[in-house]
């Protein structure tokens, strides 16, 4: 397991929860902050964040590094991220193993990479540059997938592991995304967990998806599904009590509902805390 002082179950910070967090200061070990929401010069969002980091440890989660894109790395984006890192001093920093931009156009969606040696080398090179610029290791997250490229030569799990090894970075393993991708692309999620090495896993994500007749869609708009709780249990059994955060981005409930999900996750994790 990768070294971090974070423990237990955190939740994703969302602006609708600022008042509750600042007034009630609920007992929660840490919060995951969406970094891209705080690249502003000043203003109320940043003021709330400064208050909240004075109460809770945080991690930073990004969506805009476009680590797999063939566009040049966005150095302005990375400078803003570095400034935010200096301000909030996060325990961990992450982004997704995907691409979000091409030829200067941004798609605001986590787009899929082919699982090829070329993509391994390309993404790993960029992650190394990012880590040099940020002067720290980052975590890369597996994204939900809705297709398979016919020229992929690796499995998704081998691709994730190969990029992380080549870049010498950490992994944020999204349990919900594994489940969604396994359903959509017809693989065994346990095979995914079994193939990954323990040493790079630094954080888990849990979230809810939406079920369609033909596929599952990763919406972060529902409670964690029973099958994902089961997979979380399996992941804890293999990797130990990895710090985990609950993500909820659409139809966001009141904070107590999030706490309820966090407590359920903590209860499951509790079974593994002593032996790990």
């Amino acid at each position, binding site marked *: 397991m990768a070294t971090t002082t974070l423990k237990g179950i955190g939740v994703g910070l969302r602006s609708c929860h600022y008042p509750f967090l600042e007034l009630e200061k609920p007992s929660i070990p840490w919060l995951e902050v969406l970094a891209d929401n705080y690249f502003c*010069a000043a203003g109320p969002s940043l003021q709330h964040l400064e208050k909240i980091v004075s109460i809770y440890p945080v991690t930073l989660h990004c969506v805009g590094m476009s680590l797999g894109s063939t566009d040049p790395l966005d150095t302005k984006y990375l400078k803003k991220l570095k400034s935010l890192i200096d301000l909030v001093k996060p325990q961990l920093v992450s982004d997704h193993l995907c691409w979000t931009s*091409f030829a200067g156009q941004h798609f605001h969606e986590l787009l899929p990479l082919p699982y090829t040696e070329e993509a391994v080398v390309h993404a790993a090179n960029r992650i190394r540059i990012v880590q040099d610029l940020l002067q720290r290791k980052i975590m890369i997250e597996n994204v939900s997938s809705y297709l398979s490229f016919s020229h992929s030569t690796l499995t998704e799990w081998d691709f994730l592991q190969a990029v992380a090894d080549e870049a010498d970075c950490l992994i944020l393993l999204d349990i919900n995304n594994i489940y969604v991708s396994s359903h959509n692309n017809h693989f065994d999620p346990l095979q995914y967990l079994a193939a990954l090495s323990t040493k790079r896993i630094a954080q888990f994500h849990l979230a809810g998806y939406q079920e369609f*007749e*033909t*596929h599952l869609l990763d919406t972060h708009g529902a409670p964690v599904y029973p099958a994902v709780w089961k997979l979380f249990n399996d992941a804890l059994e293999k990797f130990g009590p990895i710090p985990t955060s609950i993500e909820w981005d659409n139809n966001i409930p009141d904070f107590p509902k999030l706490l309820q999900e966090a407590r359920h996750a903590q209860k499951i994790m509790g079974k593994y805390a002593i032996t790990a």
Partner: protein
Amino acid sequence: MPSLHELQKMFADFLNRENDDVLQHVQSSEHLSAQEHVAIYQNSVRGALQNGLKEIYPVCLKLVGEDFFLMMADEYIDQTPSHSSDLGHYGEDFADFIATFPPAESLPYLPDTVRLEWAWHTIYDAANTTRLDFQKLAACYNQEGGNIVFALPPASVLLSSPYPIHQIWEMNQADYTGEDQLTLRENQQYYLFIWRSRSNLRIDLLTELEWNVLQWIQNKLPLGQICSNLHNEYPNDSIAEILPQFISRGWLADFFIQNKPVCA
């Protein structure tokens, strides 16, 4: 086998509805064709941009309803790719688009209302206002009065409209409890200063005189030039009365001396 760059080009082309070359590299499955697999991403990309516009323009959404808003948004999205990783930067020229969107012709106040919403959105996260240094200003005023160039708060926007867009905006806020009738006046022009002082966002209704002076300040005219303009256009008004009011309202954030780093 396409290179990574070629694949991303084809994928981007599909997302932009330009061609479907990428489909030859995507596997179909039991439930979905290759086209349907990639269309999941296409729908998500469009949904993200639609949601971004909805978040920035809630008053417009309320005024026209979801179906009409999405019809406008879809056409705007087709014409306007996003060029920032920050979704909050998307939609700056939505008002200009609406002004030329034939189905919105019967809503002539809509483009200016949308401009007000963009102004509100942008000042929310703009840099903080500095405090005007009165001691330094007093010292410089005596020596360099005519060469002083004032600066408006960084988080501020000047807007004018023939429609009472500030009232339209206010009436469509979730917590609004006032009158639900709006009186439109012929030949009226409304002047607005949308600005933020620390965390306090405001929309101030200006007189034509205040609007013009703030515009001159925004255009970095030195005080001497502003006095001259004032004398020509508003001979009954004096800068000696206007400036203290602007300062007390917090509308002036800073100043410098034209062509000099500091006053001696």
